């Protein structure tokens, strides 16, 4: 059975939406980070799908996805490090704590 491209893109968009929704609603920094991963993965999925369906004889989307995964990993690492720092400083990873600077 041929799955049309749409079958992949819809989950991708759902992932994007979930990621954004999760980012906006979660209270815990780690959970937010996980939401971010969802968005990144949605992008990766897009790349792969477009590559596979639109340009089957080329590889750029795939390569891009690999790099993107690596970058996502790096980002997560830095983010985790900073979250740990915050945890050390204030004893929690609740996002409502880090809103002292405003207006």
């Amino acid at each position, binding site marked *: 059975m041929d799955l049309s491209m749409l079958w992949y893109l819809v989950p991708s968009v759902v992932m994007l939406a979930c990621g*954004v929704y999760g*980012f*906006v609603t979660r209270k815990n920094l780690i959970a937010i980070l996980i939401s971010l991963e969802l968005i990144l993965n949605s992008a990766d999925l897009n790349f792969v799908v477009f590559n596979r369906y639109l340009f089957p004889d080329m590889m750029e989307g795939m390569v891009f996805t690999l790099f993107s995964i690596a970058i996502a990993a790096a980002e997560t690492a830095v983010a985790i490090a900073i979250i740990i720092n915050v945890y050390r400083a204030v004893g929690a990873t609740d*996002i*409502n704590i*880090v*809103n002292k*600077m*405003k*207006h």
Partner: protein
Amino acid sequence: MGITLPILILAIPVAMFLILGIGGVFMSRKTAGVLGILGMGTTMTLAYIVAFTYFFSGSPEFIVEGVRQQVQLFDVTWLAFTQKLVVNIGFILDPISAMMLVVITTISFMVHLYSWGYMEHEPGFQRYYAFLSLFSFSMLGLVVATNIFQMYIFWELVGVSSYLLIGFFYKLPSAVSASKKAFIVTRFADLGFLIGILVLSYYSESFNFITLTHNPESVLMSTGGATFMGCSALTWAMVLIFVGGMGKSAMMPLHIWLPDAMEGPTPVSALIHAATMVVAGVYLVARMFPLYCVVDASLTFVTCVGAITAFYAAVVACTQLDIKRVLAFSTISQIAFMMVSLGVAYDRPIEGIHYTGLGYMAGMFHLFTHAMFKALLFLGAGALIHAVHSNNYTKMGGLRKYMPITHLTFLIGCLAIAGIWPFSGFFSKDEMLAAMFANHWFWGAWMTMVAGLTAFYMFRLYYLIFWWDENPEYAEHRPHDAPWQMSVPLIFLAAVSCVAGFIPFGELVTWNGEPYHIHIEGAVAATSLTVAVLAIALATVMYRKKNEWPARVKNMWPGLWTAAYHRFYWDEIYMFITHKIIFGGICRSIAWFDRHVIDGAMNGMAWITQKTSFAIRGMQSGQIQAYVLWYFLGALLLAAVTWLALI
């Protein structure tokens, strides 16, 4: 004639002004006074030479086939507006300017001399002489103007000199406000003058008097039938120019400044507000007379204004207490006489005779005689004030014994103004009345009545000062005649007033330069003389000795008397208009508008910016999630809007 003399006539006074004005503080009073008097004396001599050369030399430069010419002794470019509209500064010599040269320099010299005595103890003596010189310069410049714009320039300058001299006692608030009033009222009138010049010069493309007056019809043609509100452009121009004259000559309704101007030193009143500056309006009309003639509606306007003013001022003069104010109103009335005389002089053949010349000549004649006797009266009043230290005649009375010279000269002045033969006023007034009767019997009758009133109030004044009842304060402070510096001018002017009537004026000054033979019109002369004598008799009955008549008359028409005493409330009306409407209404509301609406709008913009700044600060909530939401929604919105816009 070369240009040296005319230039000197203008240059000496202005040099005196600069020397005394700038260097005055370093001079003693005596030096300043002597300098001033010498300067003016020289100017007078030069002016006499010029005038006599003009009138009597018979040189072909000035008189051609019995017709006196208008000569521009020099005329240099001062400012070029356009190729054609060029303002020159020059020196015109014709019958009226020559006559005015004589009048101005004579009176001015007398006043200079007189002031030496009168102002002896006043601070700012040097400044006073500087201002007098400035005035003389401006007035001379005015009368010798070769073009209307030069006249306007000096017109403004005499206004300022008048302002400075009225406000000479600048520590007195009344003097300050009087000077301000004089300046602003005349400035307002000058606005009319200016607009008149604008209109006239726009069409005629010339300022020059000779160009304009030698061919008045072509000026009328040049307006090309342009009309505004039913009157031709030239009529408007001439009426507006006359408005300027109304201001300077204190015609109704712009007369209100002149009585107040009596706050100035009395010699100044004699010079400026009796003899010279206030007749500038008359001079202006005379100067542009041919142009007025081609639009006779404007001359009718002149006549009406003059007639109303003459009567009004005469009535008011009958009730005033301040002797200088009486003289001021008398001045207004007499100038109005001259205006009427000019107004009736237009070129309309009645039974085949052109009466143009008569009114004009008579007006000028009266200008001359009036200058002399009115200056005399004012200087006499000055002597009185000098003696009793008050302007108010209730502080006077019975002075004939104490001040014989003053008394005699004052009486001569009164007789002259009342028009009693053989004093000068008789001759000029007679000619004027003749001209008026010739035009229309109504003007003649009306002005004869005014002449009667004149005689009455002048003798009322005379009796109240010199007869009536002695002021008891004389005992402690005995009045006496003035010092010689003051007496000499009185005597001189009195002498002139006695003989001036016999000058063959018609031979010298006429509208077109051709001689006019004066002949006394018997009927007119008899009527006016009778009226004058009757009026004097009435005044004698009422005021020679202290009695109940004046009070009784006053109580007969109390409303009328009060109204006349308050000058029919003109000042109050003006006060209301200027203070309540212009200051209170217009100025204040504009200032309010500026501060609150215009400025408010600018501040409001700043305020709105600040408020917006505060209103949107919630965007920067400090919440990462909110930031991201903004971010994401912003991106989507951007896409959505663009997408919608493209579809």
